[in-house]
């Protein structure tokens, strides 16, 4: 069981920042332990809505290689993607926090609080700024599998 981090950046044309998801085969359960959201644009006052949403089909975007926290761990099975051009099918909204653009939001889950992605093909979690599809945004996720 390894712990991995991935930085996801929203520079595309959708409100989606990025996603982590199970592959189509050889999948295993993935537990999201931490998510950090922020805007990397020039500071200004604007309303944002950071969201964490389940997805049940594959997202389309640029692949990001999750980095193992322990360099001795094998590469992650989970897929990380950012600059999403097409979203997977959205499911349950797990988190939605409206904030000012100047704020940074961090969520940490431990024990039973981790968000678990089931070991089913293409199941995933998507990070999104539900209030804007134009602002640059960045999110760092930490997960284990």
């Amino acid at each position, binding site marked *: 069981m390894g712990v991995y981090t991935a930085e996801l950046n929203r520079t595309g044309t959708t409100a989606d920042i990025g996603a982590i998801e199970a592959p*189509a085969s050889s999948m295993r359960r993935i537990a999201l332990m931490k998510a950090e959201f922020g805007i990397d644009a020039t500071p200004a006052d604007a309303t944002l809505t950071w969201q964490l949403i389940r997805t049940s089909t594959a997202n389309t975007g640029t692949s990001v290689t999750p980095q193992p926290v322990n360099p001795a761990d094998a590469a992650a099975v989970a897929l990380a993607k950012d600059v999403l051009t097409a979203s997977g099918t959205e499911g349950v909204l797990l988190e939605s926090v409206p904030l000012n653009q100047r704020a940074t939001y961090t969520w940490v*889950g431990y024990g039973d609080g981790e*968000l678990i992605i*089931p070991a*089913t*093909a293409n199941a995933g979690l998507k990070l999104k700024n539900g209030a804007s599809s134009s602002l640059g945004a960045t999110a760092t996720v930490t997960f284990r599998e």
Partner: protein
Amino acid sequence: MSARVTGYARITDPGGTREHDTFTCAHCQRIVHVRSRADPASCGGLCKLCMGLVCPPCNTRGRCDPWEKKMERAESRDRLLRAAGLTE
């Protein structure tokens, strides 16, 4: 409630840093923020069957369907479809 919190949220803005305890709904995994001195009823409830904290919508639903069981059903269905060659 505090003994069962399973996470925290931190908001950092020009006004300072605020932290809230959070828990993850035992039925749907929605993240619930627990504000200090909040009425426990406003945060959801305790499922007396699985003894997990649940979010307000799941509390209102009044039915115990733990997330672990939901995952097992989804994974079982996925395995069946795969064995039958009905997935991509």
